[in-house]
């Protein structure tokens, strides 16, 4: 195809990307000379982790940037206890589980949804949560449980499914919500101050719902430069260019480098439908203690749609956390996958120990697929 993004030619687009990469590299070198260390940046969103690795930008800039993953891969931050509950739900005879595909292979304490499916559990992989509504309408003798995993981007799509279930008067539809909110998790992370970040790349698609100004507190309260960025190579580099400039000039500011999609105040309709069905509540995260106000719980008037109360006498196995797995430290930026002893030894995408190796946007999976060369180089030095 001759024409690329909005009539801008592909050749020009690629040239601009290459020029900007050099520019960002030089800027990174300048900061490294000034500060005597690599610039430490957290990319909060799991899709960013993958985009940085897959495009090669992380590798090309690895001499000047120390990129850390954040708590932005929904499968990875899901607590073991929730996984065990969801897997137990799949073992109920009349239940059809509807889930996004990522979750299937994530190991619970003893088994996974994939293993249960092999043994006969009815687990349906969906692209849109609305598929659960069609399934519920077509299978009235069955109980449909939609696994509500995700952040602010996914929450309004689950809420829309709830709205349709209510409109259609479906009695056999419920959700198991472990929906999570990004800003409280970032607050918890930055509040700890266990490691010194120079800046953050903020989640572009969570920001489409919340609006870029939701993240003002990072610059104002924690005095950290940050940028809302998109996911194409050019988007990533534009984001880094703004961020590194802010870091160079020591300006704690938020820049929106994704303004053709992300509005300052976000998507009002999406926020309204979330608020209609959900309220903020405390929830468990992998890698954190419980964070107050960081989860979305169904409002009490919609308790009929809550799988936890519908199947409340379920036997859940005692949760066990795998020894040696560093997922908790990787999604809070304390370690990189290369620091984990299990990485690429006993933990690989074929035999994953933790969720970061399973999810397509998990840091370990991205490093395994795209950055093994970097690991070799580290080992050689």
């Amino acid at each position, binding site marked *: 195809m001759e024409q690329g993004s909005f009539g801008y030619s592909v050749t020009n687009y690629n040239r601009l990307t290459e020029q900007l990469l050099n520019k960002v590299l030089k800027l990174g070198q300048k900061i490294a000379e000034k500060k005597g260390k690599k610039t430490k940046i957290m990319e909060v969103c799991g899709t960013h982790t993958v985009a940085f690795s897959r495009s090669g930008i992380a590798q090309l800039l690895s001499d000047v940037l120390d990129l850390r993953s954040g708590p932005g891969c929904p499968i990875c931050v899901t607590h073991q206890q929730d996984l065990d509950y969801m897997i137990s739900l799949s073992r109920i005879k009349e239940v059809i589980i509807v889930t996004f595909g990522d979750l299937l292979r994530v190991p619970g304490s003893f088994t996974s949804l994939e293993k249960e499916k092999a043994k006969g559990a009815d687990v349906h992989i969906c692209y849109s949560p609305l598929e659960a509504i069609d399934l519920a309408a077509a299978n009235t003798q069955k109980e449909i449980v939609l696994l509500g995993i995700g952040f602010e*981007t*996914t929450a309004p799509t689950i809420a*829309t499914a709830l709205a349709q279930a209510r409109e259609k008067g479906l009695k056999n539809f419920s959700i198991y919500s472990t929906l999570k909110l990004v800003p409280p998790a970032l607050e918890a992370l930055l509040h700890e101050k266990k490691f010194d970040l120079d800046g953050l790349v903020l989640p572009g*698609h969570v920001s489409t719902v919340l609006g870029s100004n939701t993240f003002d507190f990072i610059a104002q309260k924690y005095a950290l430069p940050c940028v809302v960025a998109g996911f194409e190579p050019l988007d990533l580099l534009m984001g880094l260019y703004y961020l590194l400039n802010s870091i160079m000039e020591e300006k704690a500011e938020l820049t929106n480098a994704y303004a053709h999609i992300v509005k300052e105040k976000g998507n009002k309709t999406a926020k309204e*439908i979330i608020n209609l069905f959900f309220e903020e509540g405390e929830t468990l995260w992998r890698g954190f203690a419980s964070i107050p106000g960081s989860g979305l719980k169904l409002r009490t008037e919609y308790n009929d749609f809550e799988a936890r109360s519908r199947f409340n006498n379920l036997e859940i196995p005692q949760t066990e956390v795998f020894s040696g797995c560093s997922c908790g430290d990787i999604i809070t930026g304390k370690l990189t996958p290369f620091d984990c002893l299990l990485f690429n030894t006993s933990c690989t995408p074929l035999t994953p120990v933790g969720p970061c190796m399973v999810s397509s*946007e998990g840091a370990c999976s991205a490093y395994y697929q795209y950055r093994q060369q970097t690991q070799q180089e580290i080992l050689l030095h």
Partner: protein
Amino acid sequence: MCLGIPMRVTEIEKNFKAYAETMGVKRPISIKLVPETKPGDFVLVHAGFAMEKIDPVEARKRIELFEKMLNLEGLD
């Protein structure tokens, strides 16, 4: 999982149901969260939902801005 795919809306039906297309792939989507969507609009699609409209003018402007900036600052 907050994967978003830019798509162009081709048709709009009743009850916020629409169809969108990218690189020859056509998918049904819901425009419930961006109800003002019209055929021909570019939208960002996540989990079968349009999440936000993409502003093509703004998209082009920011590329041109970076072109100008690189020309002004020079490549070094």
